[in-house]
């Protein structure tokens, strides 16, 4: 009997100690709808923060937004958002985008108290009937795109092909096309000089949603032969997985 009690006590102790050392759950995110965001701006002077790249933010954003890419938040917020009690609303390109949520978590750690996420991002804002502003709109242009199965042929045909991988550094490190040069989208506006204007440029992004705008921006900046990689690396990897 004593042995059973001892074993049970040990098990109970182990269970309690395990639960006690579990990490606290992630902070619950405060999502707000576009109408609530507008009211918050009016009543509390809330600031919208576009967490996408500078290029995207300047192309179109919620009026009077700050352009602070998720990757640059830590650095830029120190100078721009000094008041930790400031009401801030983070938003992103779509309801599937994680950047607003990631920036929110970062801001929470940095001590910002009144922070929110715009539910549904920019599309929800537009759907609600609110306008957007364009500071430096990237003129849209026809862009040729290729699918993964055509990549090999393209590399063979265009010997001087410059492959621009616009994904984040982490994603680039986790796997990329041979010879691809990584210039993350949030840095692209500063590194135009690194992109050759007289060579064909193939633009690869994460899931095919950003490459079109990058291609248009390159065309507007004098790159003559720009090709978009359809579906991004995710699509390519999915196709390869399917092939086995």
């Amino acid at each position, binding site marked *: 009997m004593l042995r059973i009690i001892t074993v049970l006590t040990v098990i109970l102790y182990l269970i309690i100690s395990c639960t006690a050392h579990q990490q606290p759950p992630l902070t619950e995110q405060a999502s707000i709808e576009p109408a609530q965001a507008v009211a918050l701006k009016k009543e509390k002077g809330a600031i919208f923060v576009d967490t996408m790249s500078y290029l995207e933010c300047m*192309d*179109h954003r919620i009026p009077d937004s700050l352009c602070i890419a998720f990757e640059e938040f830590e650095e830029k917020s120190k100078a721009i958002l000094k008041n930790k009690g400031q009401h801030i609303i983070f938003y992103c*390109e*779509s309801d599937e985008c994680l950047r607003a949520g990631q920036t929110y978590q970062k801001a929470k750690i940095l001590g910002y108290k009144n922070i929110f996420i715009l539910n549904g991002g*920019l*599309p929800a804002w*537009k*759907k609600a*009937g609110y306008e*957007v502003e364009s500071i430096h709109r990237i*003129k*849209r242009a*026809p*862009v*040729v*795109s*290729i699918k993964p199965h055509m990549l090999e042929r393209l590399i063979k045909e265009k010997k001087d092909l410059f492959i621009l991988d616009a994904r984040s550094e982490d994603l680039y490190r986790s796997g990329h096309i041979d010879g691809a040069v990584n210039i993350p989208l949030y840095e692209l506006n500063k590194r135009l000089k690194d992109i050759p204007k007289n060579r064909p440029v193939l633009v690869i992004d994460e899931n095919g*949603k950003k490459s*079109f*705008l990058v291609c248009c921006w390159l065309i507007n900046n004098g790159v003559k032969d720009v090709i978009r990689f*359809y579906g991004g690396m995710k699509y390519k990897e999915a196709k390869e997985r*399917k092939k086995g």
Partner: protein
Amino acid sequence: MADKNWFASLFILMILFFAGEIFSAEVKINCVDCHTSAKYKGMYKESVHGNIGCKGCHEDIKSLDRHIIKKEKPSLISCGKCHGEIDKAYRNSFHYLYEDFRCYDCHYEIHTLRPEKGQFKITVAKNCTKCHTNEEYALSGHGAAVMKGNKDSATCSDCHGLHDTKAYHTSTERYILEAREFYNRTCKSCHSDREMMIRNGLSPDTVKYYEETYHGKVQDLGYPTSVAGCADCHTTHNILAKRHPDSAINPKNLTKNCEKCHHGIHPRFAEYKAHPDYKDRKRYPLLYVSFLSMVVLLLVTFAFYWTHTLLWWRKVYWEKHKLEQLGIKPESPFAHEENIQEIRRFSIKDRVMHVLLIISFFGLVITGFPIKYHNVPWAKVIIKIMGGAHNAGLYHRLAAIILIGLFLVAIWRSIRFLFPKGFCKKDRKGWLDRLFGPDSLMPNKQDWRQFKAMVMWFFNKGEYPKFDRWTYWEKFDFLAVFWGMFIIGGSGITLWAPEMASYVYPGWVFNIASIFHSEEALLAALFIFTVHFFNTHLIPTKFPMDPIIFTGSYKLEELWRSRTLEYERLVKEKRLDEFKIKHPGLALKIASSTFGYVSLLIGIIFTFIILWTFFFG
């Protein structure tokens, strides 16, 4: 003095009026004076917007002087001011919400935009493919036909919309439901248009025939993810004629196509017909013969048995009425105490088997018929209650397993009936006598005689025939289940595991199995719910229900009256006492009545909805 003032005022007004006229004239002239490009000077006037003039859109330029010195710049034009409906639709489109495309991003040269003049589909295809490079569409049957000027063929906007392009998720692998619903809807919108299909030399009924297959029925019930939709076989942008080597439906590629859902198939699996016309004798002779033979079987069976039932009912009802009118009660040769003696007719095994048979049969009917009659509201309701087509399929298989089990038990019991002592040569003796004996369900010459006597009795030409333990209609009921099990069970197992079945026979057998399974089910259900129900329950002498199959016994008088030969035989053989049992308990009677009435009610309800659907659905 007053006149002078009046003249002065008039003079000032005239100056202001002419000054205004001059200024406005200057604006009109000055636009093209500075904007000298050909597209503003000549081409604009011929464009679709040529009649509205510069200020029609650039209305915010109030001062030309300020505009000339670039102090007043034109703001973005709101096309929605005139194109209100398009603007409304576009504000919910994918291109606006996710890509922030503006009107001028597609309508590049707004100042030189010309009327389409019948080239609309080509223009759409050309414009969309500027960004959406899609060589597959360009090479496809649709794309080629559009470029040749075919006004019926699908251009980009026919499937994806023009200004109302939604954020469609078109990967059938990632967005299983959304993509399938989208493809099925868009493909059907044109391919079910009879006139358009005939005009283009295509089958006008392809959609109709597809909806008659299992794939089509489940899809129509609202569960497109469980089955192959249009795009699963025909793909999306690269739709090519069957003869083209790259076509997804080319016989060389078809097996690979089917394998996407049906893993581990034999290549002959692909011989399955995805949307055949069973009535087309030339193209599908075997399917035609199968369908025709089942139709004939149904017609002959029901013509015979419904006539039999009607004549029987008339005879019994008329006789009952006559006896009631004359106040005559049927005579009984037994004393009261003997008369109420219960006689065992069905063993506990028989009764349990029948209860299980009812459960499995209703299970199969309730889960199967909504698939057969997929396009009526009650079918959708039943499938929804069951939690979807997938669940209905599981319940159907579960009921089928019970039925197959019963079938095997019945076979085993039949064998044991013929060879009760064993299977050795000496023990087998007398099996033929047992097979055609009075306790057997095998039809014999006596059944034919009894049938003829029954018909004579229907027409008042003879006495009610004397029956032994089993009547000819009971034997038919039993053997019909056996016959049905081979047909419906065989086809059901084939359709249950078509991948494995493809190693035994080609894919077109699945089409035949579908016909057999579906029509034999209709035959079985209607036969049970009308003929069997009448023979055993609804006949005026037993109405509304005879619980004998649940309680297992009936009165001695009933044995004497309905099974006269059996009674006489048992008396002669001095075996009657062996069958005498106690009156069934109250609990058994209540349970029997409840189960029996519920079953009867379900059956009658189903008969009505099946017949209503058949004739009016």
